[in-house]
C-alpha cells in the first residue's frame, strides 16, 4: 500500500505544502483533525494537521516545517514519490457551530491548521477574524487563502516587515478590548505562543481553545505517549483532543514532555544531514 504525493511546493523557506492521494481519509476528514504518516519501513510515525482536504478528488493536504530528520526527509520528496503509511483522520474534530464572532490565531506553521477551521467556522455562519503571524514576511504562509476564508484578516510579523510589528497575540488582545463581542478564540502555534496567548485571553469572558502537539506514536489511544494534564486529569491528546480548553491545560508539562527526545532527535538530524551532504541520500 502506498500513498502517492500528487503536488509538492515549498511555500516559505523550509515550509512545504504536500498534497497526498488518500481518498478514504479525504472522505472522512473534518476541520481540526490530523493524520500520521510514515515515509518508509524504517521511518518514524509523525503527526501533521490536515491543512486541507478534497473529498471529491480524494486528496489531503499537509503543511509542515522542517524540524528534524523526518520532516527534512519529507521535504525532499516530490510529486510522484510515495509514502508507505498515511493514517487518519485522527483526533476529535473541532466543535464548529454558529457562535457569532470567532478569533482564529495562528503562529508560524500553526497557520496551516487554522485554514480548514476558518473555512468551517465561516461556513457555519460565524464572523471569522483571523490573525496570522510569522517571524518575517518571507515566512508568512497562506495569506491569500486566509484572506478568502476569513471575514477579516490581520497580519503580524516579529520584525515588522509586514502588518503589525509584533506578536499575533497583541492583535488578539486589541480585538478582545474592542466593543465587538467575541464568543471563542482558537490559538494554534508553538506551545509557548499558545501559553502566552491563552494567558492574555484568560481574563476575558471568552472561550479559549488550543490545539496541542504532543509527541505521538499511534494516534488512536493505544500508547499513552501523548498524555497531557487538562483540568488536573490525564488526557490523551490524540483521542480526547487535540483541541482543549486552554484555561485547563498544563502547558509546562506539555513543553517538558516535548523535550523528551531532544538529544536523540538532534543526533538523528545531524546524522541525516551529514549523509545528505556526503551525497548518500
Amino acid at each position, binding site marked *: *500500500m502506498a500513498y502517492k504525493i500528487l503536488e509538492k511546493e515549498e511555500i516559505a523557506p523550509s515550509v512545504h505544502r504536500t498534497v497526498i492521494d488518500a481518498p478514504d*481519509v479525504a472522505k472522512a476528514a473534518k476541520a481540526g483533525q490530523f493524520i500520521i504518516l510514515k515515509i518508509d519501513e524504517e521511518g*518514524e*510515525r509523525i503527526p501533521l494537521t490536515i491543512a486541507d482536504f478534497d473529498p471529491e478528488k480524494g486528496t489531503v493536504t499537509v503543511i509542515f516545517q522542517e524540524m528534524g530528520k523526518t520532516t527534512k526527509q519529507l521535504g525532499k520528496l516530490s510529486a510522484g514519490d510515495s509514502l508507505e503509511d498515511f493514517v487518519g*483522520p*485522527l483526533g476529535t474534530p473541532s466543535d464548529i457551530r454558529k457562535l457569532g464572532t470567532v478569533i482564529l490565531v495562528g503562529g508560524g506553521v500553526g497557520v496551516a491548521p487554522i485554514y480548514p477551521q476558518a473555512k468551517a467556522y465561516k461556513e457555519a455562519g460565524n464572523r471569522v477574524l483571523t490573525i496570522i503571524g510569522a517571524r518575517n514576511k518571507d515566512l508568512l504562509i497562506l495569506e491569500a487563502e486566509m484572506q478568502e476564508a476569513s471575514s477579516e484578516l490581520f497580519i503580524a510579523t516579529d520584525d515588522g516587515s509586514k502588518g503589525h510589528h509584533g506578536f499575533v497575540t497583541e492583535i488578539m488582545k486589541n480585538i478582545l478590548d474592542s466593543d465587538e463581542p467575541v464568543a471563542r478564540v482558537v490559538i494554534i502555534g508553538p506551545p509557548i505562543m499558545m501559553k502566552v496567548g491563552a494567558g492574555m485571553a484568560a481574563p476575558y469572558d471568552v472561550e479559549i481553545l488550543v490545539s496541542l502537539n504532543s509527541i505521538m*506514536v499511534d494516534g488512536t489511544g493505544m500508547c*499513552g505517549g501523548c498524555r497531557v494534564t487538562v483540568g488536573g486529569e490525564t488526557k490523551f491528546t490524540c483521542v480526547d483532543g487535540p483541541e482543549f480548553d486552554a484555561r485547563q491545560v498544563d502547558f509546562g508539562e506539555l513543553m517538558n514532555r516535548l523535550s523528551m527526545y531532544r538529544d536523540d532527535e538532534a543526533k538523528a538530524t545531524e546524522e541525516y544531514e551529514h549523509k545528505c551532504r556526503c551525497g548518500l541520500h
Partner: protein
Amino acid sequence: MSEKTSEKKKTRTPMPEQPPEVRAGNFDEVALGYSKEDAIAEASRCLNCKEPKCVEGCPVNVDIPGFIKLICEEDFEGAIEKIKATNALPAICGRVCPQESQCEALCVLGKKSEPVAIGRLERFCADYEREKGVSAPGVPGSDIVEPTGRTVAVVGSGPAGLTAAADLAKLGHKVTIFESLHKTGGVLSYGIPEFRLPKEIVKQEVEYIKQLGVEIKPNYIIGRIKTLDQLCKEFDAVFLGTGAGLPRFMGIEGENLNGVYSANEFLTRVNLMKAYDPNYDTVVRRGKHVVVVGGGNVAMDSARSALRLGAEEVSVVYRRGEEEMPARREEIKHAKEEGVSLKLLANPTRILGDDKFNVKGIECIKMELGEPDASGRRSPVPMEGSEFIIDADVVIIAIGTSPNPIIFKGSEGLEQNRRGTVVAEDETGATSKCGVFAGGDVVTGAATVISAMGAGKKAAKAIDEYLKEK
C-alpha cells in the same frame, strides 16, 4: 520397560536455548527449537491416552495424542496437518500459549512427573513445515470452496481477527480485514517481542491468510474512516477483534514525567518500530535503571526488552508474590536467568522526578497478603510506613489494558459492560447488534492468543450460519 527408559520418561526433553548471558544482549529468539531427535524422544513420552485430558485443556481442542503419535512415526507432515485441522497458527501457539495452565496442566504424566512438552512439539511441527517451505493451506478441502458471494468485514488483525478471517475465507466468503496500525498481527506484532516470537513467523501466517483471498487494509481505523454502522451497511456481517489496547495508568504522582512509559508504548517502539535496530528512526529512552510495574507477560516482555536495550539493572515491581504472577512460568524463569530482579510484595506510591522533568526514582510501599477474598485469592494490603525508593531513569507501567473505545464511535446498539468490553455470546460471539460478532480481548479483556483464536473460530462458524439463514 527398563529402569533407564522409565527414568528418562520422567523428565521432559530440554529445550535448546541461547545461554542467558548471550541472549540478554540480543533480540534473537531465546528458545532454539527441538531437533528431530529431541522431538521424537519427547513424543515417545506420551501415553497416547484413550481419553486424553490434555485435549480438554486446549481452548481449540488440538488432537494432541494424534499429532504426537505421528511425530513418533516420523510423519511430521501428517502431524502438522493434524494440528492445523483445528489450530491455524501453531508456530505461534507452540511458542506463546501458557501451556502450564492449559494443555500441559491436564496431561496425566504431570501428576507424577513432568507433563509432555506439548507446546514444544507443536512448535517443532510448525517449524518443520515452514523450513521445508510447504505452502500453508493444510486444511483438507480448503482449495475447492465455491465463492458464496457474501462479504464479511473483520476489524482488527490480531489472532482473533486473523483466525476468523481464515475460517470465513475457507468457507467461501469474501473477507476484508481493517487494521488501524501500519502492520498486521495485533499484539503478535506490536506487543510480544522478537526474542519470543520472531516477526517473520507472524508475517508468514499473515501471508497464508492473504493466499486464502482475504484482503487486508492497514492504516484503516473503524470509528474514524468509517463507523461500525457504515460497515454493517456495506458488508453482510462484521467481526470485531479489536483487542484490549487501551493502557491503564496508576493515577499516582509523577506518572507523566519523561521516562515513564506505558508498556504498550515501550513495546510498540521496540517491537513494531524496531527501536533496537539502528537502521530505524524510532527513538526510545534506554534506561540504565529500569523499573517495570506489573506481573504478567507484558511486564516480563518489557523488562527483558529493556535489558536487551542495554539497561544495567531491571526490576519488576509486583504487589503479590511470585506464585501469584500471571505471567507464563517460562517467561519468569527466563527473565530471572537473564538478570531481571523481582521486587515482590511491593506497590508504587509515587514516581520521583528531577528538575528537568526526568524520572529519577520510584517510591514503593511493602505489601503483605491479607485474608482470602471472595475469589479465594489473598489480596495484598500495604504495610504502613514501609515505603522505600528504587532509583530509576525509566519506569514502564504494565498493569493492564482495556478495550479501545474508538470502535464505539458510530456504533448504534452495541452493548458494552462496565469494564468497556463488548457483550457477546460465549458460543457464537453474537453481540446485541444484528450481524455483528465479536471475540478475543475486546470481549474478555486481556487474555491469551489461543483464547482469542478460539473465539475467532467460534464466531466464524456462527457467522457462516447467520449468512446461510440471512
